[in-house]
């Protein structure tokens, strides 16, 4: 589904990703852990095609297409979804209007008919219920005045509506209490169907108690330095990132 080879990427001439390899097959859940500044968020931005994130070397194919050659919206239309760590607030644009445009843009690309307002509303209500967002949030401006937890749930709600083939969750656990974490994890788990894949980016092991990964990768200094199964996350939880060397010994876990 996703194959990244020797990826190098930079922001404002500063190289952040330095030779990253990763292969994600259908239905797999990959966790990417790592200390602050390892390039975790950058990876999500590069894969989604954000302006200013320049790929200097390497390849990334997504469902046999050259991902790096696609525009941001094409990537999304092809089934890539990024749940943001800090979703932006867009006052004046209603969540509902925004999501309806989004769902229909993706349906159009898939050759499906646009949803009518009523059809969309029905789906949106179900998705809201699933992540325990009150329906009033559909009428509010996109993320406008949402709490941190509400923003994260709104991201998962969008994922449920858009039905991507690959979802990258960028620290969807940060700033959440245990109950909210459970809601987010339930939302994600409900979308695991053996075909849809996930890349779960997180600083902490905690989220992985709720979303069980098939693989865990440690990202440090722009590269995957260690890969393993779920037990690798436990190891990090216990010993921190000290095994990465002196530089990370003090790194908070």
């Amino acid at each position, binding site marked *: 589904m996703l194959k990244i080879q020797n990826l190098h990427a930079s922001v404002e001439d500063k190289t952040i990703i330095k030779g990253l390899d990763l292969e994600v097959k259908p239905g797999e859940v990959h966790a990417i852990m790592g200390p602050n500044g390892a390039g975790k968020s950058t990876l999500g931005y590069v894969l989604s*095609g954000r302006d200013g994130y320049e790929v200097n070397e390497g390849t990334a194919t997504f469902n046999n297409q050259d991902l790096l050659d696609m525009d941001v*919206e094409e990537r999304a239309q092809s089934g890539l*979804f990024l749940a*943001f760590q800090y979703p*932006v607030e*867009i006052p004046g644009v209603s969540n509902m209007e925004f999501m309806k445009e*989004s769902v229909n*843009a993706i349906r159009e690309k898939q050759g499906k008919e646009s949803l009518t307002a009523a059809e969309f509303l029905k789906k949106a209500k179900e998705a809201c219920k699933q992540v325990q967002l009150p329906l009033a949030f559909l009428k509010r401006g*996109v993320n406008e005045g949402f709490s941190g937890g509400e923003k994260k749930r709104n991201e998962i709600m969008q994922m449920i509506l858009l039905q991507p083939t690959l979802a990258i969750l960028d620290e969807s656990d940060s700033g959440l209490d245990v109950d909210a974490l459970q809601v987010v994890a339930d939302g994600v788990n409900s979308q695991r169907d053996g075909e849809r894949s996930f890349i779960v980016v997180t600083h902490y092991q905690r989220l992985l108690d709720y979303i069980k990964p098939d693989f865990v990768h440690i990202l440090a200094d722009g590269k995957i330095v260690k890969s393993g199964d779920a037990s690798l996350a436990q190891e990090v939880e216990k010993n921190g990132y000290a095994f990465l060397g002196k530089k990370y010994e003090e790194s908070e876990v």
Partner: protein
Amino acid sequence: MSQWLNQVIEHASVPSDFLATVRQQSRETLQQQGWPGRRAESWRFTPLTSVAKREVKSATDVTAQHAPEIDGLNAIELVFVDGKLTTDCDKLEVPDGVLIATFDNLSEAEQQRAAKVFGQVKPEHHVFGLVNDVASEQGVFIDVADNVTLEKVIRITNLVSQDVDAHTRVAVNIGENASARIVEHAQGDTPSMTTAFVEYMIGDNAHLEHYRFALMAGQAKQIGGSHFALHNGSTLNSTIVGYGSELSRLDVDIIHRGEHADAKMNAVYLLAQGELFDLHSNIEHTQPNGTTEENARGIIGDNARAVFNGRIHIHRDAQKTLAELNNRNLLLSRKGLINTKPELEIYADDVKCAHGATVAEIDEEALYYLLTRGISRSKALVILNFGFIQELVNQVPDDAIREWLLPKLSERFTRMEVK
């Protein structure tokens, strides 16, 4: 002087009608003050060189044309083509108490009423207003008698042919307690030069719902004005929509001549690549207890330039005035430009007055967010940026006009390429 102005004055065949004195005066003023120089404050950002060197070309054969369709608009249609009224006023279905006639077709009493409007609302300092006084041959007088409510909209449409110079003029009198809705509509993008001025005398407790669509684009040069005199207790609700073109300039004057008059004006301008639009608005409060609320919002495309000058002048006697002016602009490119200048002159001490101007650029982070959700760039820009224009369009009181305007502006905006 400019070649064009000289020719305009030479060519003008001033009719020896009841307006001859005013026209002659304007001609003399023009000759005295001449062509606005580069440093003339009101033309500082809008160079007139392309007009100055222009050769005057009057239309020869004028054929009647239809006004642009507005679905569901129930209107009395007046159509000017190349400065000539092609509508036969005698054939219009006009309700009792309403007069629509050309200046040469007025009774003596009607002439007297028209003379109280023509040149009596529009301030003298508008150069092209003076040009229009001199060069507009056949104007129209619209007179709504006291206590008459005109249900139908009156639409004045201006169309122009290739390379032609055209000058149109309308004088409107709305009697006491009367109510009317008037649309000024100019459209087209053929190379041309038009001036179009309308003066409105709004009587005591009268109401005017007004629209001006200055939608000439491309190489069409359009210069014009809408000028309002408000008397005791009268109200004005004006919506102005401007496109940019090679040269597009609009002057709006709202003059509170009576007490307790309320004026509301919403202006929207959308400038595509390389276009220019210049809106000068001037609000004069000469009497107490009046209100003015003006909102002007524009989106400026690549290499386009907008000029907004919003003046509020509160005279010494205009106590308890409430006046607000707000101008917001969105630049779609670093190469777009807005010169915005709010001007406040307040000589009364018990007034509430506010003004502000803002300029924003595209919020790249919000745009990226929408793109990651599969929304196309052009659609995302419409969602993000069209909203603040839409907010004003949503306030348009007439349903048919609003329904016509929204998709029209949205389509223009979508075509405005972002760099």
